């Protein structure tokens, strides 16, 4: 069997939402001698891209995105020890969480899936996260991007406190801030001083990728 055929099995297991098969074929790919970072970039990331295309073409809906995310997590768990050995460099670091007073994490989970599938190092702070905790994590990890989510109009104002906390911690200039969630908008992002608004998970993850590409270009 060729390397490409093994990688296509990984891609297809994601695309066909085969939760049982995906971790098995990921292991098979490692045993075949394919580098874990290649399995991520040519297997998982390409598979997730195809899942995203099916979503955009209305062949898949939210449930399939969540299932694909779950499959990806299982595959990454299989690859984790090998990836650590390989010490592949992530394109960027993202801290992500849902603001204090808000327990919703559906959109956030999808964003995490898409970012991980693109190789990002993601620090998920979970839900109901105080503003200071966001700032601390950004400082500790030297994150490139902070992604903040809220689903309630009562909690969206907490996003402004997150930006204030970043400023107070002296890290606002070093990190790009993107916000997302049902009640927020482009205009709201501008109002509170965020750098971008992700209308949905796909747009949000595309913005993050664009930021990192720009950063890499300006550093080279």
């Amino acid at each position: 069997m060729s390397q490409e055929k093994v990688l296509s099995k990984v891609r297809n297991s994601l695309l066909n939402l085969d939760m049982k098969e995906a971790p098995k074929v990921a292991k098979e790919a490692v045993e075949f001698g394919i580098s874990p970072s290649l399995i991520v970039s040519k297997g998982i990331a390409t598979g997730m891209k195809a899942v995203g295309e099916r979503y955009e073409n209305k062949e898949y809906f939210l449930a399939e995105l969540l299932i694909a995310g779950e499959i990806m997590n299982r595959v990454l768990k299989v690859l984790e020890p090998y990836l650590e050995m390989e010490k592949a460099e992530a394109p960027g670091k993202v801290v992500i969480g849902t603001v204090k007073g808000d327990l919703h994490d559906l959109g956030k989970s999808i964003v995490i899936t898409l970012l991980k599938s693109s190789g990002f190092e993601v620090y998920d702070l979970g839900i109901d996260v105080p503003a200071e905790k966001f700032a601390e994590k950004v400082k500790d990890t030297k994150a490139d991007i902070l992604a903040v989510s809220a689903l309630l109009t009562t909690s969206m104002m907490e996003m402004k406190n997150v930006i204030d906390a970043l400023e107070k911690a002296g890290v606002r200039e070093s990190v790009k801030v993107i916000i997302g969630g049902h009640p927020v908008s482009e205009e709201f992002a501008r109002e509170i001083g965020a750098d971008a608004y992700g209308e949905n998970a796909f747009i949000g993850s595309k913005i993050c990728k664009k930021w990192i590409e720009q950063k890499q270009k300006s550093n080279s």
Partner: protein
Amino acid sequence: MIVSKFSKKQEIYDVAGVKIGGQPGELPTVMVGSIFYEGHKIVWDEKKGKFDRKKAETLLANLDRTSEVTGSPYILDVVAVTAEAFEKYISFISEITAAPFLIDSSVVEARISAIRHAAEVGLLERVIYNSILPTSKEDEIKALRDIGIRRSVLFAYDPEKLLPMDRGDILKGYDGKKGLIDMAKEAGVEDPLIDTMVLDVPSLAYASKAAFLLKKEFGYPTGCGPANAISLWQDKLKSTMGKLAHKTCTAGASLVAIFSCCDFVLYGPVEASEYVFPACAMADAIIAYSMREHGIRPLTKEHPLYKIF
């Protein structure tokens, strides 16, 4: 129409006079409508619980009337984000109506303190906790036990178990994860109700099928909330197909759940009862009629089959 007699005994609960559960055709679907929810126009201050009392009274009076005419029983879904707001809403509800109600909040502390308040003012028998989730922490379960809650919704949602055939694992537990049924027992819940979670409108397919399968396997009253999915869709729906289409789809989504044997449906804002109840009462009547071939008859003469024609 996926309606059949279940071989498993089907539990029936009496929540402050509203009966829920049973074999299809025995009892009408209990309609759960939300009040004081996020963005509800009658609410002036969501945190302090300030609202237009007169308008709220009118809404509940209309709800009573619609329920009376159609034979569709209802439970209120009282939504708030703070303990302060809950106290005001509960005080209002207890003055105006004898209906049972859900304590519903995305903020755990707020819903626990609301349950505690309901117990203190002697309303616990009318209350259903919404909800115990697979992610509920020990302290939430302990607080429920200490307060003495008897009824709770169990939210059967776990991203690892989204497919209908896998949902039973969320109730039973899997891979070392505690199941919702054990969590409910630890919380002292005697009467669990299962919510199968609707993500978006297409996923109502999963939620409805899961409701059918869970009812078949466990026998607990089961339902889901198509309303949230409709509200996520409503901007596009209204702008492309108009306000009437929004109403027909809201009612239609509840019908999908009812024809899949759901015992309760979170149909949306209480205002929607006007156009949702008649359609749902009709569906209940059709189901009751079809269940005659299995020897099942409605348990009450208040059933829509005897009221709406």
